[in-house]
Structure formats: structure tokens, C-alpha cells
């Protein structure tokens, strides 16, 4: 086959793209640990979090852990990744989607008493969208111990 000039240019563009892609992959790989938006409670437990500076913890709000102080603003709750749990205290307004058993990301510092003092609390919701009735049916099905997502008739 005769390689024409335009074929050569296509090949060059292809090689160029592959090289740029490879470079991007290596860079992202090198920054892997800096690309995280939040740390999990397990990482906090293992000490894999930055010391002396603030960071974010992400996970679920532990069921029955939410307590409000009498001033109505300060809240205590725990963030869990089902393996480890971190107690958190926060003073301020919580987002609408903040709920026990739902996702949360808190920014702050670990205090001397081991309690995470949050300066900002964000809600992290999942990618499921459905009408309330469907969510209700799904919940009932799960409570009955069925693992199937097919709705009961």
C-alpha cells in the first residue's frame, strides 16, 4: 500500500493523541492521592489524612446518631463508612438533604478530643431518581428481606 501524505498526517495525529493521553494518565496517576475530594472514616482511623490542616470526611450519617444541642444550632452526629465511625460536631445550618442514613461530606479539623469539628457540612445524594411511591415499595421489599429490586405486586 502506498502511504499518501494525508495518511501520514492521520497517523501522526493518532500517535500525538496517544502520547497526550498517556501523559495525562501518568499525571493523573501521580496526583491520585491529591485528587480525592474527601477521606473516608477508615482512612481517618488509619491516619492517612493530612495532619494539622483541615480536610473533608465523606460517608453516611450514622442512624440514630443525630443530636441537637439546646441552642438549636449545634448538632452532633457520626459519619460512617460501615467499617469505621467518626464523631462530628457542627454549628450552623444543615442542607435540606442532610438525613440519617444518607451521604454527607464535612470539612473541618480533628479536635484534641478526637471529635471532628466541621466548619461546613454538605449533603451528597446518590444517582437514583424515582417517585416517592417507588422508593417506598423498594424500602418495603428490602425490609421483607428480598434482595430483588422487582417491585412486589
Amino acid at each position, binding site marked *: 500500500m502506498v502511504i499518501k501524505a494525508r495518511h501520514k498526517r492521520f497517523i501522526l495525529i493518532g500517535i500525538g493523541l496517544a502520547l*497526550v493521553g498517556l501523559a495525562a494518565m501518568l499525571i493523573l496517576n501521580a496526583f491520585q492521592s491529591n485528587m*480525592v475530594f474527601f477521606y473516608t472514616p477508615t482512612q481517618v482511623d488509619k491516619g492517612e489524612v493530612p495532619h494539622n490542616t483541615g480536610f473533608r470526611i465523606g460517608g453516611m450519617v450514622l442512624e440514630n446518631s443525630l443530636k441537637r444541642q439546646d441552642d438549636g444550632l449545634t448538632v452532633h452526629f457520626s459519619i460512617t463508612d460501615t467499617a469505621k465511625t467518626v464523631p462530628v460536631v457542627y454549628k450552623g445550618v444543615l442542607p435540606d438533604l442532610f438525613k440519617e442514613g444518607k451521604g454527607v461530606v464535612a470539612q473541618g479539623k480533628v479536635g484534641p478530643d478526637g471529635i471532628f469539628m466541621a466548619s461546613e457540612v454538605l*449533603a451528597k*445524594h446518590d*444517582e437514583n431518581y424515582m*417517585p416517592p411511591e417507588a422508593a417506598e415499595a423498594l424500602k418495603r421489599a428490602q425490609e421483607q428481606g428480598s434482595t430483588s429490586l422487582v417491585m412486589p405486586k
Partner: protein
Amino acid sequence: MNINWFKYSSPQTFYPLAGKMIPWFAWLAAILAVAGLYIGFAIAPTDFQQGEAYRIIFVHVPAAWMSMVIYIVMAGWAAIGLALNARLSAMMAQALAPTGAIFTLIALVTGSLWGKPMWGTWWVWDARLTSELILLFLYLGFIALQSSIDDPRRADRAGALLALVGVVNVPIIYFSVKWWNTLHQGSSINMGAAPKMAATMLLGMLIMALAFWMYTVAVALMRVRCIMLERERTSDWVKELSVQGIAGVKS
């Protein structure tokens, strides 16, 4: 049927063809947008955790999809223009850039408006949001670079290189929610898995995406027609067109 595609790769023959195609795509876009918005706002059910506020998804997600699709198409045209030295391909890339930038901006703004009530913040520097912002800068950089070089052929080549290098950002945006932990949730629609949303919600979103797609084609064709006239203003076919135009006004 045997169509000679190269016939339409010359601006002279593509100009009238594009003119005929524009109304079709524009009408399709309008009809689909009305249908999509009606499904989104009147038929689709309320969401179990976000209530009515989730309905911004019918604009946000299609706009974000288009911002990525347009970039890939733009880079594709740029690559063809670079390799084949084809004028029209480079013009198509140039015509797509502003629409891509606008969809990126729409995705960022609607996402911000959505983030405030749901997450509790307008903006965070997580991987998804940051990479989408970089996409906006890539579009703006492409537009700025192209318009800062006077010689159109050189402007095309420089723009094409930038567009091609920037294409690595698109998979980063798409997979960011998978590769790193982010505040932005994962994709509701994945290949090879059941969509994680109710059927009518999904339908509304897909129709809106189609509407945006048709809009993009219509607007890009309009823009490429202007670019063709501007760049080929010294050629015979444009002069002939302008003579016809003057005659048409007089008669």
C-alpha cells in the same frame, strides 16, 4: 445509492445544502424541546428525595452531555481538517465551538443553582466540577486562539492542535465520578446497566438531549454559512451570490 461526498466538501456546494437543512433541524429542535419540557415539568413524577427541585436535571444533564459531545465532534472535524487540509472541516470546527461553550456554561450554571439547595454549596473543587470548568476554558481558548491569528489556514492549524490536545479532558470529565470520590453523584445512566431513574424521567431527559442536539446542528450550520461567506468573499461563487442578492432586493 452512490453519493459523492467530496462534492459537498467544497463550500460552494455545501452552502445551499446547509441552507436547506437548517429549517428541518430548527423545527425538530423546537418540537422536541416543547415535548421534552412538557414531559419534564408536567408528566414526570416528583423525586423521592429531592422533591420538585430535581427537575433542573432536564436541562442540566442534556447540556452537560452536549458540552462533551460537541467537543469530540469539534476535535474530530479539526483532525480531519488538519490531515486532509480540508477548508470546510476546519470551518465546521470553528462553527461548533461557541455552541459547545454555551452548553458548558449552561451545565455549570444550572449545576450551581442545583447544588446550592441540594448539597448546600454553589461550587466545590471536586474532580467533576473542576474538569467541566476546564472544558469551558478549552472552548474559550480555542475561540480566542482562532480569532487571534489573521491567516485563516494558520488559525485552523493552531486551533486544531489545541482542540486535539484538549480532547483528553472529555474522558476525564465523564469518568471523574468513577475514578475519584467527588461530591457530584455518579452517572444515573450507564452502558450495560439499568438506568437508575424512573422511565418517564429518563424519557424527558433523552428527548431534551435530542432537542439540544438538533439545535446544535441547526445553529452550527447557520454559523458555518456565515464563516464560508466571510472566508470565501473573494471567490466567484460568493460574488455571484451577492449579485443575485442585490438583484433580488431590487426586483
